[in-house]
């Protein structure tokens, strides 16, 4: 098993090396003539006002929170799905109950207006 993950590591290393090589080749070939005008932040021809690092909509947080909920559910779901063949009807109904609870949570968020993009 460990050697299997070694192969994954080898592949990741290989892609980093190959992609890094193109970056290095680029670094060797590219012209380097910076001037302040070139290095300005692009904004359709007008001077940028202030930073882009500002407060943003809270709505993104809400979607991220609901996502985390469902992602954790996926963690429970996959082992169950793999073992599904060996499980009886009881385990299927248990999982159905769990999923209905989640669905209830989603409906609650829906009714509360958390899914509206205002």
């Amino acid at each position, binding site marked *: 098993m460990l050697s299997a993950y070694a192969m994954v590591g080898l592949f990741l290393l290989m892609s980093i090396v*190959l*992609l890094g090589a193109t*970056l290095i080749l680029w670094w060797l070939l590219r012209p380097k003539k910076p001037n302040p005008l070139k290095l300005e932040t692009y904004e359709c021809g007008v001077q940028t006002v202030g930073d*882009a690092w500002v407060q943003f909509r809270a709505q993104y947080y809400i*979607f991220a929170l609901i996502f985390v909920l469902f992602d954790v559910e996926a963690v429970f779901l*996959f082992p169950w799905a793999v073992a599904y063949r060996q499980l009886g009807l009881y385990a299927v109904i248990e999982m159905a109950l769990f*999923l209905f609870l989640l669905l209830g949570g989603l409906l609650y968020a829906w009714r509360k207006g958390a899914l509206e993009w205002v």
Partner: protein
Amino acid sequence: MAQIYDFIYNLFPYLGAWLHGLLQGLGLPEWAITLIIGLIQAFLLANFGLIGFAVLTYVERKIIARFQDRLGPNLAGPYGVLQPVADGIKLLTKEDTMPAGADRWVYNLAPLIIAVCAMAPLVVIPFGPGVIGVDLNIGVLYALAVGAGALVGVLMAGWGSNNKYALLGAFRAVAQLISYEIPSVLSVAVVVMVAGTMSTVGIVQAQDVPFLFVLPLAALVFLMSGVAEVGRTPFDLLEAESEIVAGFHIEYSGMKFALVFLGEFVHALVVSALFAVLFLGGWRGPWLPPYLWTLIKTGLGIFLFFWLRATLPRIRIDQMLNLNWKFLTPLMILNLIGVALVDKGLRAAGASEGLWAAGMFAFNMAMLIGALALPGYLGRRARMAAMAPAAEGAEELAAAEAAAAH
């Protein structure tokens, strides 16, 4: 003749065995042989991604051009086939402009992370029996998890650029990609449930009937969320040219821009390859060698992506989120429960393999038609309700005009 056919059919196993014998003949220890073969495999796989990217940029432009009654690139080489090479040389000789206010490390690392995360799932895509980087026992989960890692790169690119368009694009990207992760994970869970394994090889072996015909609803949802996760039209609002110019990769030039694009195209390649593995039966098919079948089925998925791009307009962000959270996610949860119950029921009734597949197909199609009819009905009702007051207003206006005329 039969020998040549056999050699072509089993090309990669033969090459592997030959290489193994050659290295043994050189008197190398077993661990060194494993390492060398592993390196060669990794090199070939990585180049599959890189060359696939180059080919896809050309093929996409040609196909889109044909859809739009144009010729597409036709100057570089015969039929313009050297266009990717010309593009590559151009990008290699472009100056690097990093905006003065950018966060240096975050900005420069982001393209590499996007590209590597997009390449990473290639290692678990099977091209034939035994022709695979590595057959992980959690293959599908690995592909989903690592593929989603590109999201971090996208957010880094948007935040690190210190550009308002880039930040807007990154926010949209994150909202979209994490949202569509859910239906995609759920549809894969349905497949894993029916196949009984998370290994990509195991899933292909389980498909005596391609899962497209057993689980059509899961296939459709996986394809839709795949398009959304790759961020292609109609879900390309994270890089909408007409609103936020190019989204998160607006400030990148030269090779860094190429890496971002490589990430996008290789991700599309990986999603179609996964679609082929999960729903179209992977390498299985008559006559042709397994690796050709994999490529043909992957190509079908990619062509569908291009076709969608040529056909559909971009959707708005609220529509995109509504489609996911109010339609696809509840639908897939219900589908998962339904498939589990129907499967257990058919198995308990002792249905044969064909009958089982037919039953699953019928259930899925019924659910699909019902699911498509419901929003259509609700939408029509909402439109009627919106139109009714306007109609009343028009009548009153007409009445008032008539009164004024008298």
